[in-house]
Structures are given as structure tokens and as C-alpha cells.
């Protein structure tokens, strides 16, 4: 299979949701409903990515135990993000906690 075909396809659809929108807004009458729906796309997509990533780290079975370092560190990260609202701090503390926790559990 040609991997460049895949990259071309991904590049086209990604460019298509960025540039043309910049060009058309204000020139074409776009319904308010569309914008209302678009506002929910970022949180919905990100939640649909991260929550299975925490709960189903192997991609197959749900693991809600304290030995699931993805879940525990994910909850810690969420608390840091909620209390501080600081992205960089969340990344540093969350990633740091994750690595230390895995080390303690002997997962590294």
C-alpha cells in the first residue's frame, strides 16, 4: 500500500476544514445552527479520544483498577487542570505523576 496516498488524503481533509472556512465566512450565509454545533466539536472529540485511552489502555478491555496507571494519572491530571486551569502545569504534573506511578508499580 502506498503510505503517501494516506498522507495526501489526510492532508487534503485537514486543509479543507481550515483554509476554505476562513475564506467563506462572511461571504456565504452560514446558518447559526452550524456554528452552534461546531462549538461542541472540540470538547466532544477530545473526550472521545482521552476517556477510552484512560479506561481501555490496551484497546480491548475496560480496566477500572488502581493498577491502571493511565486511569489514575488521567484523574490526577484532570484534577490539576480543573483546579489550576494551567495547561503547561497539567502536562508537567500529569506526565510526572504518570511516570513515577508506573515506576512504583513496576510497569516500567
Amino acid at each position, binding site marked *: 500500500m502506498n*503510505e*503517501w496516498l*494516506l*498522507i495526501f*488524503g*489526510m*492532508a487534503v*481533509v*485537514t*486543509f479543507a*476544514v*481550515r*483554509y*476554505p*472556512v*476562513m*475564506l467563506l*465566512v*462572511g461571504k456565504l450565509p452560514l446558518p447559526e445552527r452550524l*456554528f*452552534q*454545533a*461546531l*462549538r*461542541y*466539536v*472540540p*470538547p*466532544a*472529540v*477530545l*473526550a*472521545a*479520544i*482521552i*476517556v*477510552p*485511552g484512560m*479506561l*481501555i*489502555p490496551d484497546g480491548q478491555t475496560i480496566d477500572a483498577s488502581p493498577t491502571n*496507571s*493511565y486511569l489514575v*494519572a*488521567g484523574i490526577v*491530571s484532570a484534577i*490539576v*487542570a*480543573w483546579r489550576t*486551569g494551567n*495547561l*503547561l502545569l*497539567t*502536562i508537567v504534573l*500529569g*506526565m510526572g505523576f*504518570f*511516570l513515577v506511578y508506573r515506576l512504583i508499580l513496576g*510497569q*516500567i
Partner: protein
Amino acid sequence: MTLAARTARREFLSGVGDTVPLIIGAIPFGIIFGALAVTSGLSPVAAIGMSLFVFAGSSQFIGVNLFAAGAAFPVIILTTFVVNLRHALYAATLAPHVRHLPQRWLVPLGYWLTDETFVIVAKRYDEDDDATHKHWYYLGSALSMYLNWQVCTLIGIVAGGSIENPGRWGLDFAMIVTFTGMIIPAIKTRPALVSVVVAAATAVIANPLPNKLGLIVAALCGVAAGVIAENAQPKPEVQPHE
């Protein structure tokens, strides 16, 4: 240097400076992407090609995951489209500010639009001064994110080839923690919370669907739930003047 050139330069540099914290956040993300891409079977040239031409971190992560799982190309491309649909909102928000620019500006600014640059640039456009060179600020933010992403991808490609079993470190958690940091502060209203909860629950329930189709189903359910919740809210009552 003319006054205009000096102003442009200052805007450009402050765009770079204000983006630095987010660049730091993107560093592990980019390195891990490079490492994951080569360990999932993509050639090193294709891995950097994806960063150069697609330039959308989360969809690149999901793309190589699907590629490793042997998903069909149309499925990967459709998933990329849904995951990146949020950029349409960013583009629409910035459009009134950049509409006056010529095409040679609009094409790269559109191409380089990311979550991080949007957050930074939208803030700058909201500042109530009549600066005429804010697109240079945008360029500084976008270009520094782009260059950083390429360098980090390269480091990851090299590292991925030399580390034994990179999955053991669980560094894919970098994407989870980054998105957690972006999403939690954005949940400010009840409909946003409803949208997130429905999307997350659907994603877990629909996980067994082939080709990670559960992601698309969950995103659509989350968006629908948010819209329904917003429309069901009682409208704020207008207080009559006394």
C-alpha cells in the same frame, strides 16, 4: 527599517514568545508521535511527511494508530476529517480578522492553524488596540509551532528506531494529559458538560466497533447532546428596566 517593518517584527516576535509555553507542551507530543509513527510501520520519510503536510497532532496520532491496526485508508481519512472538524470553528472565529489579507497570507495561515495557535491568536485579536499587524503575531505563533513540530517529529523518529519497545514507557499518555489540560478548563457550561459526558460514555461503549469507528459515533453523539442540552435550557430572562 521602516516603522511598519518594525511593528511587524515586534508582533512576530511577541507571537513567538506567547506561544512558548504551548511549544514546550507540544515537545513530548511531537517526539512521541515520531517514535510511534515508525514503530507502527510507517517509513521514516512518511512519518516526517505526515508532520510536514498534515500538521495536526491528534489526528496524526490517531492516524498512525489506525494504520498500525491495519485500518482501510478511507476510514483513516474520514476519522481525520471528523477529528479535525474543530479547526473549522477556529477558522470561522478568526475569519473576520484575517479576511482583508491577500491569498499569500491566507493559505499559510489557514494551513498552520492548530489548537495552540488558535488559543494564542484569538486572545491577541480580542485585545482592544488598533494594531494593524496582528497577522504577523499569528504568523510568529504558527511558524514556531510548525518548526517545533518538525524538529520533534525528527527526534522521535530517530529515538523510536533506537529504543527497544517504546510502548513499555507508556508515553502515549502525553496525548491524554495534553488533551485533558485543554478540555477541562473549556467545560464552562452545562451543555458543554453534557456533551463531554455523552461523548466519553459513547466512546467507551462503542469501543468494540471495528476501525475505531466508535470515535466518530461518540463525537457525533456528543455534539448532538450538547446542542440538545443548549436548546433545552431556559432562555435567560430579560430584566425589564425600572
